[in-house]
């Protein structure tokens, strides 16, 4: 059982992030299943309600669950790997509080006021008469709060990487190393045989975290900035003087919004994931990372690629210039296949060097994560093609074969690999009680995730649109029933994992991660009869 009093503040804050993340994950998959059941024509709710759920579902899933788990892990890993103290423990606490409150407010904007411009918020739908100013204002405040949490996280993280409380390392080489430029210099030295390669100052996972966080800041700037505009519109509408929406061109807005939003999907997620794979591969194998200079350099390429790929979201927008469609939408996007392929190769080869390895939960989930991205990235490359996009855009293919494959199988499995690795480190070696449940979690999540994504992919190829309900129309019922079956497997996987974790750390331990409970009264010793 978990002894919270023995935990360091860093362990405790990381555990707080993890618990909140897992709870939000539960909400996300429940919402997902509610939508799925509705899609099988059970007619559970009216369209307003359905789309309010669809608006909340990705926000809770991405910011409440995925970001939260990643942030918690990084708050623990960055000081641990750099052997430094965290810059500010208070800011770390503030991060999870702001993000949780923000996600709850966004969720309430759907639950109470039926805000449902969905996470793409295409202009001018959010500021239109379709949603009340209360709905828009609540969503905006929630989103700004989440973004504030994200800024604080990045600030605290950068300050931890660069602060000089513990050693006298000069700033410039540290920055070069964090950007991965030393990887390029080493490669240059190796190819030209001029000079000797130098061991980089920053551990590779830190380089990935630093780079990914650059995208994290940029995306928070865009999404937060647009939420400020929403708040402005909501405030004027509340005062009875609604502002005209015509000042913002819908297509330019769409470009800006997708540039920011895509920094999550095609930027920080892929970079953080690559960094996590590298860390796990070295931890599991006990070997140095294979081709680490290439890995460092590739992470920088990935960052630059991530700033230039948003065009693949606008391949069906006929007002978008053809050149932008071809260069950003097709060609630069194709490089995501290369950067992800490099990460897969390096991770698998690093592990291979250490054969034989024991098939631990960490290794299993890591391979599951690699499998998820190996299936989801090519599906994305296929739809990022002018010919294919014309017949796949906004179908269930995009959100199933590509997005859910990556989110649930690729990212989800990678995060679980990290969770199972960090669990003993964060809890001072509490052992999970049941291996069988961990195994069940793995198989049910893997089969469920791939099965659901494939079923959605097939629905998409059969013409079923995303974000669309088909009342009294059974055309896609079979695909949706199959998707629901696999979705239920994922619910079972989640329940098994939660039961296992809670059973291992104890309900009391779980609560004490957040609040101190009164000390337990010891049972009176039975009187010794003489």
């Amino acid at each position, binding site marked *: 059982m978990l002894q919270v009093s023995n935990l360091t503040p860093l362990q405790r804050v990381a555990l707080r992030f993890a618990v909140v993340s897992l709870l939000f994950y539960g909400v996300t998959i429940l919402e997902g299943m509610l939508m799925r059941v509705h899609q099988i024509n059970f007619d559970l709710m009216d*369209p*307003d309600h*359905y789309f309010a759920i669809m608006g909340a579902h990705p926000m809770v899933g991405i910011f409440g669950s995925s970001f939260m788990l990643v942030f918690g892990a990084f708050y623990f890993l960055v000081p641990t790997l750099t052997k430094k103290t965290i810059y500010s423990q208070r800011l770390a606490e503030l991060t999870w509080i702001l993000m949780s409150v923000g996600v709850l407010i966004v969720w309430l904007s759907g639950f109470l006021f*039926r805000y*449902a411009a*969905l996470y793409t918020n*295409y202009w*001018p*739908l959010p500021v239109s008469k*379709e949603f009340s100013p209360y709905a828009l204002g609540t969503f905006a405040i929630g989103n700004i709060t989440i973004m504030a949490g994200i800024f604080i996280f990045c600030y605290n993280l950068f300050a931890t990487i660069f602060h000089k409380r513990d050693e006298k390392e000069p700033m410039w080489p540290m920055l070069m190393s964090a950007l991965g430029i030393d990887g390029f210099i080493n490669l240059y030295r190796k190819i030209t045989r001029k000079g000797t390669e130098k061991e980089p100052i920053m551990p590779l996972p830190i380089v990935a975290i630093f780079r990914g966080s650059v995208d994290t800041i940029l995306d928070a700037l865009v999404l937060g900035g647009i939420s400020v505009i929403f708040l402005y519109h909501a405030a004027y509408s509340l005062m009875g003087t609604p502002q005209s929406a015509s000042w913002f*061109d*819908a*297509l330019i807005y*769409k470009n800006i919004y997708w540039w920011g939003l895509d920094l999550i999907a095609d930027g920080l997620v892929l970079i953080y994931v690559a960094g996590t794979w590298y860390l796990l591969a070295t931890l599991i194998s006990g070997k140095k990372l*294979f*081709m680490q200079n*290439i890995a460092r350099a590739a992470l920088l390429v990935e960052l630059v690629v991530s700033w230039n790929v948003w065009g693949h979201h606008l391949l*069906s*927008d*006929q*007002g978008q210039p*053809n050149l932008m469609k071809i260069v950003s939408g097709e*060609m630069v996007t194709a490089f995501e*296949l*290369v950067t992800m*392929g*490099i990460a897969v190769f390096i991770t698998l080869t690093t*592990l*291979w060097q250490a*054969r*034989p*390895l*024991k098939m631990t939960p960490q290794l*299993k989930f890591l*391979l599951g994560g690699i*499998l998820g991205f*190996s*299936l989801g990235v*090519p599906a994305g490359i296929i739809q990022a*093609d*002018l*010919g*294919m996009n*014309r*017949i796949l*855009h*906004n*179908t269930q293919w995009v959100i199933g*074969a590509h997005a859910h494959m990556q989110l649930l199988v690729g990212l989800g499995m990678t995060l679980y690999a990290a969770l199972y690795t960090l669990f003993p480190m964060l809890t001072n070696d509490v052992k999970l009680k049941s291996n069988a449940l961990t195994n069940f979690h793995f198989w049910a999540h893997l089969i469920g995730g*791939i099965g659901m994504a*494939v079923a959605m992919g097939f629905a998409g*190829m059969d*013409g*079923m*649109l995303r*974000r*669309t309900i088909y*009342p009294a129309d059974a*055309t*896609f019922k079979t695909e949706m029933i199959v998707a629901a079956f696999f979705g239920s497997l994922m619910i079972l996987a989640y329940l098994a994992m939660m039961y296992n974790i809670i059973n291992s750390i104890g309900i009391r331990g779980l609560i004490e991660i957040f609040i101190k409970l009164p000390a337990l009264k010891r049972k009176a010793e039975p009187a010794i009869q003489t």
Partner: protein
Amino acid sequence: MIESSHVLGLLKVVFLVYIAIVVSLIARYAISITKPAKKKFELTAYHGKLFYGWMGLLIFVGVGIHILTFNKIPWVKWDLNRDKIKADKEFNISIADYKFTLPEKTLVIEDGQTVRFNLDSKDYTYGFGLFRDNGSLVFQMQVVPGSTNNLVWKFDKSGTYSIRSTEYSGPKGGNLLVKNAVVVASGPALAQLILENKTQSKTN
């Protein structure tokens, strides 16, 4: 002529085969990695070559897909050259307040005609998609307010199609469906349809 149904049919097969290959490769890797190596692993020039070969393959596949579709899928060229293509017929369709306004009750197209669809949105971002009776998608595009949204398509098969908005425009967007709005025909069937449209517009 290649149609979306052919491409999507092929994609289904490729998708399933690809999944089967990747899953079995990872499964094989997972089994092998738990077995002792026959000899001690040493990094050699071979591994470097393998790595650069792998990168080359990925670049080839990533760029090759676009070259393949550019050459094999006809609508890519129609799209890129649509400003220069002379259409046989042009339809101006507008969308406002969750309603399509079509120029005629039924959009009649003669088999073999090249058609330009000009779409205009008065309020939100919508979509414009043409669907077959079995629900499968022929093509779609976005309809963004303030943008020029047009698409050129060549029809070479008789059939009846429905129009549906393919972009979410709010919870009321589900109403944006016009069943059997487009008919492609030839011969007497075409003459009949044209006549019906004429009578309809007179009575209106």
